[in-house]
């Protein structure tokens, strides 16, 4: 185990990407991602890595420049948040359809309106259909590790899909934690330079981004869908390789004290650590509760989730976003749909909380377990709203 030093998570994420032999970074600053952008600039301007840093004039151009760079065979990286991610929205499905393995950090932040710069998952949820692999981090070490792994996953010849690593804005990006950066030599062994499936160069002229008529479009949808679903296999394999090389094991679905639990809480992102503390407290008081944490959001890890919740009677699904006018929170909606065909399933209580940076404390999670006992139906709860 290497040396751990206190680092701001955003800075650490940039340092982790700097170990990855990237060729092009195109970044536009937005709070709370800006420290990632600024630190990448520091690293490149100091000549610590050999990469082109494009200070684009908007996030739309950031993802477009990454698309061009990736199409030309480069390992490309960008980072954004909230409004920036919304501005990229048009291009995200194009990049995944074009099978360009761009990696991106998303500092989860609430979406306007009203303008709010603090943490929730409202920015990544509208992108859930975009065909990107989407991973969630809970702490700074995960931000480092998953940032590095994302390149290996994205570029795998069986995957060739872009990947976004979600890091809760402010809640995580601006925390200073004791973190271990892997060594450059070890990372280089784990992640060799990119070998593109195809690239733009006159030595072999190809056309990329061609349009498809109605007689072909459906087949391209199936191809992209299949690639995304199959990527879970490769993600699991990369997680195992990481464990072997660096000693830290990740799973697409993490479980914490789920054995014998009749009520489980499900979280995504940094609130998982707080929820774990709540679970510890309640277990000490003799309550049979546990925690499930989704690390992989897209492709949705169906089998692993079903295995994690098969014993419980009640599942409290935390959403840090809402699908306005729909069935509640996006995570709960997905889970309910995926369990629809099961012969037995737990009672699902969807709690939407922590919006716009509203803090989630241990007491809040304990209160949710109490609410779960009392609530009769399965409609969603907008937790903590002052009525």
């Amino acid at each position, binding site marked *: 185990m290497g040396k751990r030093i206190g680092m701001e998570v955003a800075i650490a994420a940039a340092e982790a990407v700097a170990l990855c032999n990237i*060729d*092009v970074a*195109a970044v536009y600053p937005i709070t709370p991602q800006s420290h990632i952008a600024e630190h990448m600039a520091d690293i490149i301007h100091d000549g610590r890595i*050999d*990469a*082109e840093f*494009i*200070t*684009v*004039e*908007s996030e*739309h*151009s950031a993802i*477009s*420049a*990454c*698309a*061009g*760079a*990736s*199409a*030309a*065979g*480069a390992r*490309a990286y960008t980072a954004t948040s909230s409004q920036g991610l919304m501005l990229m929205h*048009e*291009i995200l499905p*194009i990049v995944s359809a*074009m099978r360009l393995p761009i990696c991106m950090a998303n500092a989860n932040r609430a979406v306007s309106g009203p303008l709010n710069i603090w943490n929730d998952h409202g920015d990544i949820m509208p992108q859930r259909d975009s065909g990107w692999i989407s991973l969630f981090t809970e702490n700074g070490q995960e931000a480092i590790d998953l940032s590095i792994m994302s390149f290996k996953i994205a570029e795998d010849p069986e995957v060739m899909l872009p990947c976004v690593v979600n890091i809760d804005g402010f809640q995580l990006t601006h925390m200073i934690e004791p973190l271990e950066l892997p060594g450059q030599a070890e990372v280089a062994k784990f992640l060799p*330079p990119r070998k593109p499936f195809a690239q*733009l*160069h*006159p*030595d*072999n*002229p*190809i*056309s*990329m*981004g*061609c*349009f*498809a*008529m109605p007689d*072909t479009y459906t087949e391209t949808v199936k191809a992209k869908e299949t690639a995304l679903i199959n990527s879970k296999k490769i993600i699991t394999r990369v997680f195992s390789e990481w464990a072997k090389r660096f000693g830290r094991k990740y799973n697409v679905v993490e479980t914490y004290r789920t054995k014998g639990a009749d009520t489980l809480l499900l979280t995504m992102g940094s609130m998982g650590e707080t929820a774990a503390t709540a679970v510890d407290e309640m277990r000490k008081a003799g309550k049979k509760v546990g925690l499930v944490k989704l690390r992989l959001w897209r492709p949705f890890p169906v089998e692993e989730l079903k295995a994690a919740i098969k014993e419980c009677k009640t599942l409290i699904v935390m959403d840090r976003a809402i699908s306005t006018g729909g069935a509640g929170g996006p995570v709960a909606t997905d889970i309910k749909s995926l369990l629809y065909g099961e012969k037995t399933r737990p009672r699902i209580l969807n709690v939407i909380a922590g919006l716009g940076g509203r803090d989630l404390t241990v007491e809040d999670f304990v209160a949710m377990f109490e609410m779960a006992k009392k609530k009769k139906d399965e409609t969603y709860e907008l937790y903590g709203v002052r009525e």
Partner: protein
Amino acid sequence: MNSVQNFEIFAPKLIDRKEYISAGHRACQGCGEVLALRHILKALGDDVVVANATGCMEIISSGYPQTAWEVPYVHVAFENAAAVGSGVEAALKALRRKGRIADRDVKTIAVAGDGGTADIGLQALSGAMERGHDMIFFCLDNEAYMNTGIQRSSATPFMAATTTSPAGKAIPGQRTQKKNVPEIMVAHKVPYVATACPSYPIDLINKVKKAKEVKGPAYVHVFSMCPTGWRCASEITIKMGRLAVETGVFPLYEVENGQYRLTMEVPEKLRPVGDYLKPQGRFRHLGPSDIEKVQAQVIREWEILLNKVECMQPW
């Protein structure tokens, strides 16, 4: 200034025979834009990567599973040709430096229509030019959003009829003057800015070759005659380009580091603009007083340009 000076070639027969856009593309009969593209690619040769915006040229050439392109080509979306090109240029630079691709110059070019340049594409263009990427941006200007059915753009000329600026009873066509994108490029201090027209292929090819030599951004605005959208006969495509130049509607000039130079025969008096307007259906609603208005504006713009040619000093 006599445009025949300093030409390496002066005969169409001597132009490089290789075709970089194959026949079988789906452009309209008599398309001036694909002809312009044909000449541009001949001037650039094999060592080029093309970033193309959605538009006529993209649709007629890259319908899966076929492509008309003989050079590396990428299309992403409508408004980001310059941004995609920026990424390509940066990638080629980085990969060459790291020894992952061959060690020779490969030029990045971005190609967009007037919509993808002056309207939805203006932000990306401005950003790319300001950042100084080694890239040539080509605006293939057919003066409307032709691919989607002839809707107006900011490059549509005054009083032209398009589907979103129709010649109606209350409002007769386009209400505003054509946006001057070459001027915007000069304001960005782009080292080489030029206007060109495929009716003058040798001038166009030489300008493209000059743009290629620039180690930095360059911009070429190419007049792209469109018989379909302008409602004129397909066989007079080349003639319409000539008339645009001879009447001063589309003067041919280049700006090298801020110094303006005309690259066309400067006439004693410009040909009357009516000669250019009359063959086009998009101007058929213009009465004599309208044509006078257009004529006055053309002469005004021409004099402003002549003034720049005389007065502007290089930066």
